[in-house]
Each structure stands twice: as C-alpha cells, then as structure tokens.
C-alpha cells in the first residue's frame, strides 16, 4: 500500500550520486487517518466551532485565527490536501502547500538549510516536513523545559566567579 512506500523527492543526478533525500510516509502520524473513514458520510462544508469530536482539541493560531478548513484540506477527498491551483496533494507533500505563502522558506527547505534531516550525510537523508515541527493549525514553536545546565564549579560554596 501507499503508506509503506517512501516518496523520493529528489534523485539528484541519478547516474552518479548515491545521495537522495526522502520524505518518510507520515500519514500514520496524522490523527484519525484515513479521514474518509468518517468523512465519506459527514460532508459539512461550513464548520461550527467548537468542532465536534474528535477535532475538539484543535487550536487555531495560524494567519490571524484562520478557520477556513478548505484553504488547505480538500472538500471532497478528505484524505488529500489541496493547493491554490486546485491540485490535490498527499499529506506527505504538505510542504508544497506551506511554501505557497511562505515562499522564502522554499529554497532553504529544498537545499537543506531550513528543516531537519537525519540519516546519512552522503547516503539517504530522511527529511522532516514542515508540519513535523510546526503544528499547521498553530505553527508557533512552543516553549519547553531545557535539559539540565552544567554543574557550576562554585555551586557548593555559592561564591561568584
């Protein structure tokens, strides 16, 4: 099935290079996927807030509290996202949707300057998409507790250095 396959975003110079960037399938990490499980029957076009279960926890802090689902989600095929040019894309390609507005991040994302990549620096690079770090409904990065600080040499005496 499609969920198992990995999507190869770019195979740079297929002949020579081993380096390739893949975006791992992330539909399994989308809550309640596949959406059409329920939405093949539920077809509300204008949402009412607060949203019914299981979407009641969604917070909207994106682009001045935008609450227009259809801006990104496809109205009929809920398992897909929709670009402004009405092209349907998979949840794995959500970065294409983001860079419609955040265009300046596009080249950085493609070159690897912005965003996280793990794996091998000369083999297969697993690239994280935008939404793995930024919640699409409230994209501002949250604040956390940092790991513990190093031990201060004068901690016991309390003296200042």
């Amino acid at each position, binding site marked *: 099935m499609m969920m198992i396959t990995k999507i190869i975003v770019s195979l740079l110079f297929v002949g020579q290079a081993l380096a390739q960037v893949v975006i791992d399938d992330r539909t399994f990490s989308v809550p309640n996927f596949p959406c059409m499980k329920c939405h093949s029957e539920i077809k509300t076009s204008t949402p009412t807030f607060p949203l019914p279960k299981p979407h009641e926890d969604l917070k909207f802090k994106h682009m001045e509290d935008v609450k227009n689902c259809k801006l990104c989600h496809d109205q009929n095929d809920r398992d897909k996202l929709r670009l402004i040019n009405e092209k349907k894309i998979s949840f794995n390609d959500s970065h294409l949707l983001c860079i419609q507005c955040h265009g300046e991040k596009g080249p950085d994302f493609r070159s690897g*300057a912005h965003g996280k990549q793990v794996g*091998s*620096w000369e083999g297969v690079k697993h690239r994280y998409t935008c939404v793995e*770090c930024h919640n699409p409904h409230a994209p501002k990065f949250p*604040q956390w507790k*940092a*790991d*513990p*600080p190093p*031990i201060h040499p004068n901690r016991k005496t309390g003296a200042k250095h």
Partner: protein
Amino acid sequence: MKKKSLENRLGKAMENSIGKQVKRRSFLQGLATAAAASVIPVKKAQAFSFAKFFQKHYKEMDAEDKKSVFARIQKEAKEKYQRDVTISDPEVIEGVKFAYCLNLSTCNGSRKCVTACAEENNIDPQIGSYIKVLEMPIGSMNLEKGTKYYQGDSVPESGKFYMPVQCNHCDAPPCTKVCPVEATWKEKDGLVVVDYDWCIGCRYCQAACPYEARHFNFREPQLDRTKINTEQSYLSNRVRPKGVMEKCTFCLHRTRNKQYPACLEACPTGARKFGNILDEKSEVYQILKTKRVFVLKEELNTMPQFFYYFD
C-alpha cells in the same frame, strides 16, 4: 681497568652511606633485588601497563600494532566496566572535508545536543559535555554576555537567543601547535583529534584554544556502566584515562561511517547542519553559498570550520 675503578668508587660510596664494607658480589646482589622489588608491586597494582607505556604514537602504528592496542583497551574496559566494547578505527574518506553549520534563528536552547553528546561520547559528568549553549541577550554578539548556566524552565525565553559552542575544528588550530608531544593533530578530513594514550596532560592546548573546546580529565571517568556507548573508536569516544585532554571530534566514529553526528540527530529544531564542504549537493555547501555565515573570533585567524547563520 676502568670498570674496576668504577666499582671501587661505587663500593666506597655505599660503605660511606651504610657504614659497612660492601663486597662486589653482595653489591650486585643488592642491585638485583632492588630491581626485582621495584617490578613486583607494579604488577600487583596494575596501575601501570608496560604495553601502554611502550605503545607507539597513533600515526606510527601499523595494522598489527592497532590490533593489539585495541584488544588491550577492550580488555581494560571489560575489567573495569564489565561491558563488551568494540574499538574501531574508521579511516579518513578521500575527498571529504567536514564542516558544520548552525542556524541561530531556529536554535531554541533546549540543550538536547548537550545531553546527546554526553551520552554518545562517554563523557565524565564532571566535564559534562563538549557542547555548551550560551544564552545571549538579543542585539549582542559579545560572548562575555552569554551564560551557559541558565536554568531554561521555558526556552526560548523572550529577549534571548541561544548560541551553542563546541570545537570549531579550525583549519589553523592553535591547540595543535602548542602540544609538546604532538598528541593532537588535524586529520586530512578536517577533524582535530587527540591520541589519549600519547597525551601527557600538560593542558597547554586548553590554554591555547580560544573557544574553551578542550576539557581535562581531572579524575578517572565515573560513568554509569549500563549507559556506556559500546560502539567506540580509538580517536573519539572510547573511555578516556585520567589526566588527558578530550574534545569534540564531530563524532568521528559516526561521521566517518557516513552518519550524522549525535548532536545533529538530537536537535529538535533542525538548527544543526553537517556535511562534506567539497560536495556541491551537501547542506553545508549550499548554506555557505546562499547564506551570510560568520565564525567565532574571526580576528584570531584560526579559520574555524563551524559556521553560524541566521535565516
């Protein structure tokens, strides 16, 4: 004739000191027992290993030497920590020069890299980590205004930015120049490494490094034996002995096997970028090409290979 007179003189000297006539035979016997006595306690205490003392410099070792040295280190680790470690020695990859880039716009100071580094490299808690994250006031690039002891209850704090500092793997490293025994040097792929068994612990390199990237083992490392990383390499993360210098090696045991360093994998914001600067398709090449990067203490002409940028 000459030999005889020397013995006479030595005999005289001993007579004077112990007030008893010493014959040649008893004198030589005394010497032999003294020599034997000096060897025996050493063997018992195991504080001193002949194999280690007469070990060659890393660069002069051949494959045979390396094999026996790695076997000795593995045996020592087994005795001390009851863990089966593997000591490897990944080779320099031709046509590769490592560089690091760090995006200060996205770093949120959560110290995940600091923790990952300590775990990966078997670092003694007293040293802590090879990475220190400086919390700096926005609008200043003065490192003296930064602190690494911030509590970080909710990072990033407003009005602050975070600057992780570690070994810059300089192209003109001041630390290797001052080493009196050449126990530290720059490898062909750009990594500055230390031969822990050759280091005499004089700490000149610590004084010479302008980035505080070198750390000294004041004590025998006190590690949780269950948490020891057993994938070790001779030049990087094997457990260091007491009294030697250690430093960041860009996780040599990972990066020479084409993996990313541990700090990069742990970074929750993707601020860290690593790769081969000679490869046009690598992230670091693209960042240096398209971003305005800067290095720390550029005026010192150390030519760091650790670049910072904002985006």
